[in-house]
Structures are given as C-alpha cells and as structure tokens.
C-alpha cells in the first residue's frame, strides 16, 4: 500500500523519477550548462543589438570552403552542422543498440560518433585558422573604428589587390603582411578607393574623408582579442569565446565517447548487464549538438 503510494508520487518506485542516479545527474548538469550557454548567447545578442549597424555580417566573414575558390558563404558551417547532426544520429543508434545489449553494434556506432566529433573539431580548428589569419584586411582608424577598403562600386578589395594592383593581387591576402605605409600610399594614389564600413549599412566615406581618416590609422589583418579586421572588436571576442567553449565541449565529448567505447570493447557493460553509460554519454553528446543548433542560428544566420 505505502509502497504503491511512493511509486505513484515519483512514478519510479525506489528509483526516483524512474531514472538511474547518474542519468538524472547528467540531466541536471546539462540544465546548468544550458543556462551557461544561454547567458553567453544573450550577452552576445545584447552587445550586437547595441552595435547593430557596425556588426560584421556573417556571410562576409565566413566565406571559405576547403578546395573551393571564391566566396562560399555559409557552406562550410552548413557542412559542420550536418556532421554534428549525423554524429548525433549515430549516437542514438549506439544507445538504441546498447538497450538491446548488442555489444558490437554499439561499438561500431560509437566509432562513427567519435569520427564525426573529430571531423567537427578539426573543421572548427580550420575555421579558426582562417578567421585568425584574416581575409581581405582592413584599416583601423584612430577612433578604433574598423573600415574596409572598397572601390566606388562598393566592392570590398583585399589589401593584396590594393597594393599589388587588381591584376596582380589576390581576392584574399593569403598570409601576406602589408605595412601601413604601402597600403596608405596605394590608397592615396588611387582615386577610386574609399573606406567603407563593414557592417550592415556599408556606408562609404567620400574620397576626402578617406584621406583624412588615414591619419593615425593602422592596417589590421586577421582577428584576435585586440584587433578584428571584420569589424566590431566584440564580434571576434564573442566568436572565440562561444565557439571555443562549444568546441571544448565537443572535444570533451569525444574524450568521454572514447572512454565509454573502450569499456564497451572490454565488455564492462555486458558484465553490468546495462549500457547506461552509453546512454549518459549520449545525453551529453546530444546536448552538444543542441547547443550548436543555437550557436549556428545566432552566429551565422540571424
């Protein structure tokens, strides 16, 4: 009688909420982690909202795809999203097989998940590399405002095209470094070049204002915590922090997956007669995918 009452109160009898202890704690950890990430993303939204007109447009920032020339906006990040969704699917399949105590099937799907996670982390490293090296370069004014150099038609030119000429230069700087003097000299010499804001409004300076703005300005190439050629400095800082924190989650997930995979191979969960650990690491892995869904939307789409 009293036992029934307890069972109905928790719907789980002597196992509260009908959930294994470790699984419930994993859920509670994920709740706190979700709140952490929402703190980051709302902070990002707040700062972006404040500087909306100067905020870099993601399609102008993430334009590379390995092996493809020219601008491929969103394509690479779409690929990364696909990889992560795919690895989430293989993780569900591993959990599913674990419920049926199928050791080999679980192991293979875990291998697939680990490979997916590895591809994602390396893709992120690749993207960071290109973000840090930079693309077209920019000019940071004495007011610490960042401006792109464009022609009168509003097309942004790379420093390489400005210094070496349109026919000899490349559309990106390709790791070449340019000094302040040679860039400013070329801008002063070419009547067709003006400074243009990198944000949504793309407002160009006129020629006079362009020349005047070069006083006390610096050339910046690439992005780090102090300078950001793509526009507002906070964009780079948030990019490093949020995608870095997420990437670290993916990396930890891969490590945890490898540990659980090792135990699957050893037959640990066969002896325990439960593959609960696969389920728990699966929850974590899906959460990482879930966070990416939001990061993808707020960093690359909106």
């Amino acid at each position, binding site marked *: 009688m009293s036992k029934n009452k307890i069972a109905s109160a928790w719907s789980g009898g002597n196992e509260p909420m009908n*959930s294994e202890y470790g699984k419930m704690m994993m*859920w509670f950890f994920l709740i706190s982690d979700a709140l952490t990430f*929402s703190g980051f993303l709302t902070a990002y939204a*707040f700062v972006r909202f404040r500087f909306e007109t100067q905020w870099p447009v993601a*399609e102008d920032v993430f334009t590379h795809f390995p092996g493809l020339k020219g601008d491929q906006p969103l394509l690479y990040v779409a690929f990364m999203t696909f990889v992560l969704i795919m690895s989430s699917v293989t993780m569900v399949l591993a959990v599913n097989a674990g419920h049926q105590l199928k050791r080999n099937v679980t192991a293979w799907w875990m291998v697939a998940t680990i490979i997916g996670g590895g591809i994602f982390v390396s893709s992120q490293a690749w993207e960071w590399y290109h973000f840090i090296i930079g693309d077209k370069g920019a000019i940071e004014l004495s007011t610490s405002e960042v401006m792109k150099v464009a022609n009168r038609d509003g097309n942004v030119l790379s420093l390489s095209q400005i210094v070496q000429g349109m026919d000899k230069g490349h559309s990106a700087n390709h790791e070449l470094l340019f000094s302040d003097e040679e860039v400013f000299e070329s801008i002063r010499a070419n009547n067709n070049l003006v400074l243009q804001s990198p944000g949504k409004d793309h407002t160009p300076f006129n020629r006079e204002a362009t020349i005047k703005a070069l006083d006390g300005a610096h050339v910046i190439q690439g992005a780090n915590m102090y300078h950001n050629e793509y526009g507002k400095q906070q964009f780079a800082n948030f990019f490093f922090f949020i995608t870095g924190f997420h990437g670290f989650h993916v990396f930890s997930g891969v490590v945890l997956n490898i540990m659980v995979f090792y135990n699957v191979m050893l037959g640990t969960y066969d002896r325990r007669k439960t593959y609960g650990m696969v389920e728990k690491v699966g929850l974590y892995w*899906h959460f990482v995918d*879930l966070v990416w*869904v939001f990061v993808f939307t707020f960093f690359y789409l909106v």
Partner: protein
Amino acid sequence: MSDHESPQGTAWIWKIFWLLLVITTVEVVLGIIKPEILLTSLAGTSILNLIFIGLTLVKAAYIVQYFMHLKYEVTSLKYAIYLPVLILIPYLTFILIFEGQAIFEF
C-alpha cells in the same frame, strides 16, 4: 507505462534525421539567398530572423524529445528538466531585450 516505452527499431531515428536535415537545409538556403520579402521588419527584427529562431526551436525540440529521449521519461523528470530552462532562459532574454534598451541612453 506504455506511453513511456520508446519506439522499437531504428526507423524513427532516421525519420528525425531527415527532418533535422531538411530544416537545416531550408535555413542555409534562406541564409544564402535572403529573400527581399522576408526582410520586412517585424517585432524589432526581420521576418527572416523570426523564421530562423522558430526553425531553431523546432530542431531543438526534436533533439530533446526524441534523441535525448525526454518524451518517454516520467512526468516528474520532464518537469524537473523543462521548468527551470523554460522559465529562466525566456526571463533572461526578456530582461536583456526590454531593460537592456537603456544602454542607448548612454
């Protein structure tokens, strides 16, 4: 307890996969072409952005409900997980969107 039993087989997993893939593809295509008509301003942002946020929430719901299996947990666990998140995150967002406008006064 039959409503807490998860579906059998693996067909349901692939169904969710295709759904997530289609939603992501729609998002990416919309993000690349940015149809002029969807850039109309609505509720302080564009219709396109609202579509992105809506699709994201749909994706998130499917991941949590099916991949993370929350749909098939007991009610008490569902509430223990949903309530803190569904109360605190909208609250934080609300504070930042409405009270945060004060930043423009400085």
